[in-house]
């Protein structure tokens, strides 16, 4: 698995912390209480659990460390080489090996002591065995203190390495120290690399990203390389060498022709020759920097011939100056183009391209007949185009900006349609809820009068007269009825609003039987316009009784609105038994209070004693923390 980003490695604690973490975890996560009067099997189980739990925890933590750290054989050779340079492959492997050994030792200790615990016949003995087991594991970890410390430092440094993707398009910048590599990368990318006059300002690899042809390009800045044999190189230079050796990138060899870096052109060319083997199979570009100081033509003839040597070897030489920014983009474009061409070439040569080419098919429409149909422009149009003078190009703000350079300032008010003296005045947009722009026009009153005149004319001429549509009788009838229905609805709504008296107790329906009387029915239907005069035989009318001598039926005394009232006036229930207004308020409040608790617990009534959850988990589980114990 290739990781380009080593930020997810677990933190490696120091030996002391490691032991503390595991032992306190054992203490928290296993049962803590045992007495000597328990059955011996229970005591044994208790202590065996502790030993096994500690072993498990140690095992888990150590194995995550072992799996998280990258194996040097599994990652990209660039990163393997870089890690070798920075951390020493042997030391790294040894440290991880020691951790592995510790892991196995701890497992063995646990196995042995669990076996011994099976023969423990007293609490004291089991306890001593568990103490010995945990102590042994702790000593094993204490011996790993050095390895753990080293691995923690490696992890911190590893997580800070810049995330360089070894497989994507990359430009690699190399050369002597102080030639201007970091300035170059600062110019083309957003990487903020430190630029200082002393050598070896850049001490590690830096990465920046730039765009070309809608693709993302990685630009890698290396520390400067000095010209001495490989064995004498220090760690910083070795990083640059590792990058050169393993990244398939376009190489930009930067040279300082003004010799301000402290090395002559001859030395720089010598360095080039010595690291030439690293440039095999990679598109190469020699870049001459600091041309603002001295140009290529102004060089001495001997130096010119050296540079001519590059050109003779088919290596493109380009000039640029990072200070004055001339030629920087040209260099970038050239390098990108070369790399792109190279990558395409490589891809074509590889076997994978066969598979892609097999799947690609450019469809060309089949010609219907042999007639050629080129583009056709009539002659007159061509003539016209030639004689027409070119439209004058409108001067844009950008042109103005370019012209005036530093004197340019954006003036959005210069095209306003106002007289010059108050064009630049500062005015508000709204005032007293009205748009000021509506009132700015000097002829506004005249315009208003004109509009009004126009309006009068229109009204006179009858533009706004509504056309009376001729309705036939049916439609008229429908209209009338609709009006009546609306009216009735409104009346009902108003009546119901009046009728509703805020929760006053209402008599049950059975007591309101007398409301629905025949006379009421008759009066309501008359209102609606139904003819009720000769409805003597109807169902709703009372039929004549058989016997003549019947006692007179008690008729409900209805008032003008038809509402029935009983003979004795009964006080409504919320007023009965209460002497005055304060008592009434108090009684009401007591009623509300009693309701409140029932509502809160969702009780159906006073007698509801249902409990939804008999053993809520948060009260019946977990260990007791520090706190009072007078409550379950």
């Amino acid at each position, binding site marked *: 698995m290739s990781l380009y980003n080593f930020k997810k490695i677990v933190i490696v604690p120091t030996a002391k912390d490691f032991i*503390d973490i595991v032992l306190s975890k054992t203490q928290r996560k296993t049962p803590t209480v045992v007495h000597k009067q328990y059955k011996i099997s229970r005591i044994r189980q208790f202590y065996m659990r502790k030993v096994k739990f500690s072993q498990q925890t140690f095992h888990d933590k150590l194995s995550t460390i072992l799996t998280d750290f990258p194996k040097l054989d599994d990652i990209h050779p660039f990163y393997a080489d870089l890690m070798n340079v920075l951390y020493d492959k042997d030391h790294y492997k040894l440290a991880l090996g020691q951790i592995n050994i510790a892991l196995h030792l701890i497992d063995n200790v646990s196995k042995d*002591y669990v076996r011994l615990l099976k023969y423990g016949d007293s609490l004291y003995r089991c306890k001593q065995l568990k103490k010995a087991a945990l102590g042994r594991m702790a000593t094993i970890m204490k011996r790993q203190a050095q390895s753990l410390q080293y691995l923690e430092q490696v992890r911190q440094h590893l997580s800070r390495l810049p995330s360089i993707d070894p497989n994507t398009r990359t430009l690699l910048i190399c050369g002597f120290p102080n030639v201007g590599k970091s300035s170059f990368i600062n110019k083309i990318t957003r990487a903020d*690399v430190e630029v200082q006059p002393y050598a070896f300002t850049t*001490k590690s690899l830096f990465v920046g990203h730039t765009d070309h042809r809608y693709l993302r390009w990685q630009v890698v800045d290396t520390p400067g390389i000095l010209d001495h044999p490989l064995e004498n190189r220090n760690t910083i230079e070795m990083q640059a060498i590792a990058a050169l050796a393993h990244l398939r990138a376009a190489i930009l060899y930067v040279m300082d022709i003004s010799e301000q870096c402290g090395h002559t052109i001859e030395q720089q060319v010598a360095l080039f020759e010595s690291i030439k083997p690293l440039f095999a199979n990679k598109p190469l570009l020699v870049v001459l920097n600091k041309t603002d100081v001295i140009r290529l033509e102004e060089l001495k003839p001997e130096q010119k011939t050296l540079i001519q040597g590059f050109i003779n070897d088919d290596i493109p030489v380009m000039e640029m100056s990072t200070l004055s920014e001339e030629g920087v983009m040209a260099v970038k474009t050239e390098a990108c183009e070369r790399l792109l061409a190279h990558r395409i070439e490589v891809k074509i040569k590889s076997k994978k391209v066969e598979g892609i080419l097999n799947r690609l098919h450019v469809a060309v429409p089949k010609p219907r007949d042999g007639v050629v149909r080129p583009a056709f422009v009539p002659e007159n149009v061509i003539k016209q185009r030639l004689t027409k003078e070119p439209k004058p190009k409108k001067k844009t703000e950008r042109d103005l900006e370019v012209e005036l350079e530093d004197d340019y300032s954006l003036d959005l008010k210069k095209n306003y349609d106002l007289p010059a003296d108050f064009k630049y005045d500062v005015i508000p947009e709204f005032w007293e809820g009205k748009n000021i722009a509506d009132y700015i026009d000097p002829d506004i009153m005249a315009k208003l009068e004109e509009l009004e005149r126009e309006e009068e004319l229109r009204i006179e001429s009858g533009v706004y007269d509504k056309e009376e549509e001729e309705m036939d009788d049916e439609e008229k009838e429908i209209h009338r009825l609709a009006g009546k229905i609306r009216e009735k609805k409104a009346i009902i709504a108003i009546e119901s609003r009046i009728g509703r008296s805020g929760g006053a107790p209402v008599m049950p329906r059975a007591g309101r039987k007398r409301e629905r009387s025949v006379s009421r029915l008759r009066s309501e239907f008359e209102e609606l316009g139904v003819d009720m005069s000769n409805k003597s035989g109807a169902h709703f009318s009372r039929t004549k009784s058989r016997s003549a001598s019947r006692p007179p039926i008690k008729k409900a005394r209805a008032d003008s609105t038809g509402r029935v009232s009983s003979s004795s006036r009964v006080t409504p229930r919320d007023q009965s038994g209460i002497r005055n207004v304060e008592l009434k308020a108090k009684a009401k409040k007591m009623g509300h209070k009693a309701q409140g608790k029932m509502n809160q617990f969702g009780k159906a009534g006073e007698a509801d004693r249902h409990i939804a959850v008999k053993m809520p988990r948060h009260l019946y589980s977990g260990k007791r923390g520090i706190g009072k114990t007078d409550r379950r």
Partner: protein
Amino acid sequence: MPQNEHIELFQKRYGFRMDYQERQRKKKAREHKLQSKMAQKLIGIKGKIFAKKRYSEKVQLKRTIKAHEEKKTRKKDEGKVPEGAMPAYLLDRENTSQAKLLSSMVKQKRKEKAGKWDVPLPKVRAQSEAEVFRVLKTGKSRRKGWKRLVTKVCFVGEGFTRKPPKYERFVRPMALRFKKAHVTHPELKATFCLPIVGVKKNPSSPMYTSLGVITKGTIIEVNVSELGLVTQGGKVVWGKYAQVTNNPENDGCINAILLV
């Protein structure tokens, strides 16, 4: 500076806040308050660990203070002569006082009476049979109780094979059989893990010796060829006696002192 050390880069370019140094100083000055608060608040196992750590810190502090103070004060050099120092012309004489002779005689007599030997642990607690053996009930209804399970650590030789299980009276479980002992050389103060050759004598009972039971005070014979000891005559010493100094059944290992 590496590319992603943003904090350090910013600090390098723009420096610190105006009151940064002041704040750091004040924070440090407040640290003792936090420590004392922790010391009061923490209880239980965390409290114990914290107290232990703090105690060791305090001890270190006191030592350094004392060392500093010693340098400051000047002590009068009294020209002390250590006790028992003799002038050079008297060195060859052996001065044993009368009292010393008497006391050594008495001690010798006492030793012979008690049967103590000249070993690092002269007296050990005797282990009763109830301690060392546990009754194993066998038989179909688990009524027969003639078998015994050894509950202490034991050593069986290399070519050891059990008696047929039906007839073996003393069961020595495999978990309790040890082959190696951690032997300390009393003069070199170094400890080696040496293989056991045999059990020479168990002070509690000769039966234990024959069974190979190792308890505290047992004399065992260990293979010291690792140490490379050579006799006067040029022969290589490969076996030496050692006495067990811990309770192996409680610690899971046999610690012994070499008898030189």
